[in-house]
Every structure is written in C-alpha cells, then in structure tokens.
C-alpha cells in the first residue's frame, strides 16, 4: 500500500481561486518523491493539505494509512514537516527547540536527549546547539528545522523547498541528510523549484503546473521521453561546415544548431562520445573552439509539457568540454 | 519650489488616505478616551475650581483634539521612517529638488490633515451636544492653532524619523507622547491637578496649547489663552522644524 495516496485532491480558496485542481499521486514506502513546479503552481498548497494544515475542498488523501481530513491527529503522529519558512523561536537555543518539539509530539524531553544530540550532530550544529537561534545563519536554521522534523522518528518526511535561498554548504548538508534518510527507509516528499535538486534526490518526480500534475516518472524516464543528450560544437574559424556535418553524421542525428553553435548532433552514449568526436574532427583538420554536452533536463520536460520554463532554469544543464 | 512642495504634499496625503490603518488611530484612540473620560467624569464640572463650562464634553474636546494631533505627528514620523526604510527617501534626496521641500512636503500634508481633525472633533462635539461658544471666529482660531500645532508635531515625528531611520523606533515613542500629554492641563483644569502633574503642567507647552484650543470652545474668544496657545503651537513648530532640517542635514552629511 502506498505511504502517500492522493486521489482527485482539490483546493479552492474562498476567493474562488483553485490552487489545486484534482491531482492523483502515490508514493511508495521508502521512496523519495520530488514535487517540482514553479512558484504558484500549487506545490505548497498540496503539501499543506497532506500535512493537515489545510483542509482539502475535494478528493481525498491518506498519509501513512490515515485520512488527512478525518484522522489528522494520527497523520500528525507519523509525519515530520519542515516548511518553507523554517519557523523557529529566535529566543530559544537549538537544543531547547529540539526538546520542545519532542514534548509537542508527546515524548518526554529526557527520553529523546540522545537522539536529539545525534540529529544535531548529523546536521552539523553540535557547536551551536546551546546558542540562541537568533545567532544562526539562514542555512543553520534550515538544518535545525530538518533535525526538529526528525526528532520523533517520523515514517514520512515532508520538505517544502528545503534549499531555496541556501548557500552551497548548507544545501550539500541537507542533500546528504535526505540521501541518508532514504537509505534508512524513510519516505520523503520533497517540493522544489530546482531541477537539479529533484534530479539528484528523487526516485520519482511529479511536475505540477497550474494545480495539475503534467508529468510523472523517474527523472531518467522523463528525460528519455524528451530525447537524447546532444553535443554542440563550435569551431575556431569559418570552416567547411558541410564537411563537418558529414563527419558528425556518423555519431548520430543532426539537430538544428542553436545561436552561436556551428553543429549540433544527438549522441546516444552521451559523455562517452566526446573523445571520439574530438578525435575525428581533429584528424580532419578542424580546430574546435567549444564543445558542449547538453543533457536533456527536467526543464526541457517542463517546457515540453507546459510551454514555459521553470524559474532559475533558463540555462540548460551544460557540461563544458 | 512651491510646485515641488505641492506635489510631495499630494503624495503624502494620498499615502495616508490609502492606509486606513494609519488614519484610524487618529480618530479612534482619542474618541475612545473622550468617551471614557466624559462618561466617567461628567459630574466633575461641579467641583470647586472648575471653570464655567456647559458640560464636561465641551471641556474635553480640546484634550481629544490635542491627543489626535499628537498621534498624527507620530504617524507622520512612521510614514517618513517607512519612506527611509523603503529607499524612496534616497531617491528624493538624489533628485534636484531643494532639501527644504522634502521636509515641507510632508508637513504641509500633516497641516491639512490637522485642519480636517479640528473640524472632525468640533463636529463630533456638536453632534453630542457640545456648543462652540466662540462662534465662527472661535472655530477659525481653533483651526489656526490646530493646524500650526499639527505641523509642529509632524515636524517632531519627522525629525525623530530622520535620526532613527526605522519605523519601530518612531512607534516606540508613542506611549511617551501620551505620558507628556497626560501631565498637562489637556484633560483637567490646571487648578485641580494634583502632584506631580500640577507642577509639570505649568511648564508643559501642551497645557498652553490645549487651553488655547479650548478657550474659543467654552467661552467667547479671549485674548490671553488664545495668544498663549498660538505661542505654544508656534514655538513647537519652530523648534521642531529646525530640528527636522538639522536632522536632514545630518543625514545628508552621512550619506
């Protein structure tokens, strides 16, 4: 049975705005599900319904086997939540917050002390545990928030845009922790507007736009739907482009070259084809100025499905040669 | 110069009108206070030493008006501070308009608003049975003193905003303002105050301001209190505007 089971879930606000317009999804036990979409697509609304902070206006959802509308207390017992704002009480220390969180979940603060220390260490806050949160950086607050969400050993973890606006170090720590949770068998529901994040962490990705899921699958499958990686080649001086095209045709189908690129060729084997391509061109006397391996990205999937690009994803993922 | 001041005035006024949470306290706080005072202390006009008045409401109107003008000064300060926080102020300073125009623009708006406040509270008094004994000349006197005082309080708020540069500090002076008002003769005749308010009230310009605003309401216009009221309002306005200009200059030097 799915750990998160959503059927026809809808949310209409009093203003008449329909933020979520009937979505279906199922997340298997131990799976990391990436929920990807631009700002305002309905990601946060969906998460708030799944964690019982907002009542659905249509459809149904169960989390860890309990209905979010009719058995919210049972759901709350089994989930950990780190919401976008990392809401913390600035006057308390990290350790005190961990203990408060334990109390709120019905555990005696004493009984979780060891686990709290362990979690604080895992997110790299051991040094800061007894300092007030007011002195923490944004990244430290997010990491503490994550540790708090885990203190009662939840079956399902919800992370709402956990790394938006974070520095690279904090982002790496959070990613590591999510990978570790997956290894431990925790089910993770992760929303993000970063393609790379979904690509790196998620077993499966659902793409939401305007309150509807427009694509779903493993990152690899979604990208495969869009097509093969390709190589963009640019030459030093004006060469015989016709000859170059003939040479490259041996590697795969030619594509229309984007601006500033001389030839673009689809390559099934990806990075493995770079060296042979360079060798062939070199032997024929061409001087390569730039060569880029362009992987199809989730953004391409998104653009394909919605005709729009994700925020901050206007540049395709590129591997400079 | 005039055109610039008028443009900035219009902008300030529009800003106030579009932010009801700024305008509401000007009216609601003094009205609530007025109601509580008048309702609870209505019999005090029979006390020995109370000046001859038709009723306690007539006496209290000037107090409510002074309070409203003071709150408006704080609001002006908050609006200026928000403008500084938001960066709009720097844009004004960077533009080729006279510095004084920046200060004056908002103050003229505060003065116009003060006129409306005077008329509102006089109207409110009439509605609930007070009488303006000084008649039309009395109303004009109250208007003149009120507008002058409103500009003065606005200038104080602005000077504080220019120094503090954040709205919460300006907001923080609000209780202090009410305390200063309290130890004046704004709400009760000076002859009937007890220690320590009685001695403080003698030196508190707000006493003379409130008495000047009150005289034309409770009697025919008499020279002494009205002149004292004008002097208090003009003094506050002059000192506060000087402070405001100095604060602006200090700010420009740092910038």
């Amino acid at each position, binding site marked *: 049975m799915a750990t998160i089971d959503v059927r026809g879930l809808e949310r209409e606000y009093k203003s008449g705005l329909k933020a979520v317009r009937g979505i279906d999804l199922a997340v298997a036990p131990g799976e990391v599900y990436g929920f990807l979409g631009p700002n305002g697509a309905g990601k946060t609304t969906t998460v708030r319904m799944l964690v019982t*902070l907002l009542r659905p206006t249509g459809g149904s959802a169960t989390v860890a086997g309990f209905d979010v509308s009719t058995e919210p207390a049972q759901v709350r017992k089994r989930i950990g939540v780190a919401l976008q*704002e990392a*809401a913390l009480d600035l006057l308390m220390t990290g350790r005190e917050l961990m203990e408060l969180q334990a109390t709120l979940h019905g555990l005696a603060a004493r009984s979780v002390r060891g686990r709290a220390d362990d979690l604080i260490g895992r997110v790299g806050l051991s040094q800061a545990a007894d300092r007030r949160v007011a002195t923490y950086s944004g990244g430290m607050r997010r990491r503490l928030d994550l540790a708090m969400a885990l203190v009662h050993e939840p079956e399902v973890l919800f992370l709402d845009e956990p790394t938006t606006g974070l520095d690279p170090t904090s982002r790496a720590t959070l990613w590591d922790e999510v990978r570790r949770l997956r290894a431990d068998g925790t089910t993770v529901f992760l929303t993000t507007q970063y393609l790379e994040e979904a690509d790196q962490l998620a077993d499966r990705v659902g793409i939401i736009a305007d309150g509807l899921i427009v694509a779903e699958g493993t990152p690899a499958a979604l990208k495969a739907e869009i097509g093969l990686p390709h190589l963009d080649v640019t030459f030093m001086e004006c060469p015989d482009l016709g000859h170059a095209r003939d040479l490259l045709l041996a590697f795969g189908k030619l594509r229309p070259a984007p601006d500033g690129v001389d030839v673009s060729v689809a390559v099934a084997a990806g990075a493995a084809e770079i060296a042979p391509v360079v060798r062939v061109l070199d032997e024929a006397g061409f001087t390569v100025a730039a060569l880029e391996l362009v992987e199809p990205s989730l953004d391409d999937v998104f653009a394909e499905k919605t005709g729009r690009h994700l925020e901050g994803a206007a540049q395709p993922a590129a591997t400079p040669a | 110069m005039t055109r610039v001041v008028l443009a900035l005035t219009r902008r300030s006024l529009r800003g106030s009108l579009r932010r009801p949470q700024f305008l509401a306290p000007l009216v609601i706080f003094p009205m609530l206070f007025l109601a509580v005072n008048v*309702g609870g202390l209505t019999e005090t006009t029979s006390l020995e030493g109370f000046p001859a008045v038709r009723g306690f409401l007539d006496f209290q109107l000037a107090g409510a008006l002074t309070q409203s003008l003071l709150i408006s000064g704080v609001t002006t300060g908050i609006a200026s501070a928000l403008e500084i926080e938001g960066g709009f102020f720097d844009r004004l300073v960077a533009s080729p308009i006279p510095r004084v125009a920046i200060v004056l623009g908002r103050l003229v708006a505060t003065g116009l608003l003060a006129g409306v406040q005077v008329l509102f509270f006089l109207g409110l008094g009439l509605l609930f049975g007070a009488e303006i004994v000084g008649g039309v000349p009395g109303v004009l006197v109250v208007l003149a003193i009120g507008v002058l005082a409103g500009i003065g309080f606005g200038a104080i708020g602005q000077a504080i905003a220019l120094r503090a540069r954040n709205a919460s500090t300006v907001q923080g002076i609000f*209780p202090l303002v009410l305390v200063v008002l309290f130890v004046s003769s704004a*709400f009760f005749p000076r002859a009937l*105050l*007890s220690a320590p308010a*009685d001695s403080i009230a003698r030196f508190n310009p707000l006493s003379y301001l409130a008495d000047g605003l009150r005289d034309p309401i409770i009697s025919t216009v008499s020279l002494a209190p009205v002149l004292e009221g004008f002097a208090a309002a003009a003094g506050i306005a002059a000192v506060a505007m000087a402070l405001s200009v100095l604060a602006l200059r200090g700010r420009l030097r740092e910038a």
Partner: protein
Amino acid sequence: MSRMQLAVVAALVRRALNEITRVPGAAIPGVLAPTIFVVGLTSVFGQVDRLAGFGEVDFRTFVVPVGFLQAAGFTGAATGVNLARDIERGWFDRLLLCPAPRLTVLTGVVASAGLRCLLPVAFLFAVALATGVPFPGVDGLLVALLLVMGLASTLACFAVTLALRFRTQQAAPLMQMGAFAGVLFTPAYAPEELLAGWLEAIATVNPVTHVLAGVRQGFVGEVTWGDTWPAGLALAGMAVAFGAFAARGLRRYSS
C-alpha cells in the same frame, strides 16, 4: 487532560515566559504601563474624590483595581499580538502539526496570559502600597489576583480570536482597543451613580463591571460573598463565550 497534554501546555507556557526572561527591557513597558496609568490618572483626576458618592475612599485607591484590570487587558492583547506574530512567521504551523488536540495548544497559549499579568500587577501593587493605598486584606488580594488572572486569560481568548481571524500583527490596535474599552466602559473612574447616563447603561450590561467590583471590594471595604460570586459568574460566562470563539477560530483556521 492527560499527562502528555499537560506537558504540552507547560512547555508552551514556559516558552511564552521566555519573552520576559530572555529579552532584557522588552517586558518593561508592559510592566510599567498599568502603574503609569494609575499614577497619571491620580495626579490628573485625583480631586474627583471630593465629589459626594466617593464617600471616604480616595481616588488612588479607587483606580488601583482598574490598573489591575488594565494589566489583564494589556497582557491579553499582547498574547493575541504574539500569536499573530507567530502565525506570520510560520511558528504557529509547527504547533498545529503536533498530534496533541488543538485545544491543548490553545490552552497553552492562553494560560500564559494568566501568569504573565502577575508581573505588572505585582509592580503596581507595590507602588500602590508605598504611596498609601491600604492593604486589601489577604482575602481581598487573593480574590483580586484570581479574578485578574482569569480576566487576562479571557481577554487573551478574545485577542487570539482576532489573531486567528486576521493573521497579522496589524490587527494589534483592534485587540488593544477591545480590551481597553472592555475594562474602561465600567465604573472605572467613578461610582455608578456619578457616571453619565449612557455610560451607566453600558456599565450595567458590561460583565467586566462585576469583575471590577470583585477586584475592588477588598480595597474599598470588606470582602463579601455578595460582591464575589457575581464577579466569578461574570468571568466564567465571559471565559466560556470567548473560549468558544477562540476554539471556533482555531477550527476555521485550517479550513
């Protein structure tokens, strides 16, 4: 209430008290305000007790209990403002995500108000005794403290209802003025027979009037059952009503 729920309430109360113990200075205005209110009121309106109707009681003694109620009002309103801030910052979501019944969370938030109001009350009481207000008797003091703590929690329910409805600290003036009006539209400044007719009418139906009489009895005379039970009943009625509003507000918050 189970042990786990009690632990949740205790943790939330402890957290609310952090604002007093961990932010030096932040609590001072709230602690001083009722005392300043009473001292100011006495030095301005002190002569009022010359009116027949006050009997032997002097004005200071008469308004100290009003100061106690003000402390409850300020604390109750502050509880609502703090909740609105917690909602704005997302902290309240964290509380709602805990599996304890939501009424437990509400109880924790509201119960803190009953404790916090004791600080300004204690300060005011010390100043009052030092300036010659007679000791109300152990029974009078106990009854007064219980009623004031109850009123603080009740007014906190009122303010919390507004916070849940508006979800922004901008609703603060509404909370403060509601509490202010509830406390002062009573025989706060003078005995009922001296009030203006309209205020007397309001005071008669305002349940806070009974609470005030219960708090005041020890200060102005003997503690009697006849003054105590109406105070308790009025407070219980208000607590049930505002508690129900707050609970409904909480239910609607997520829907």
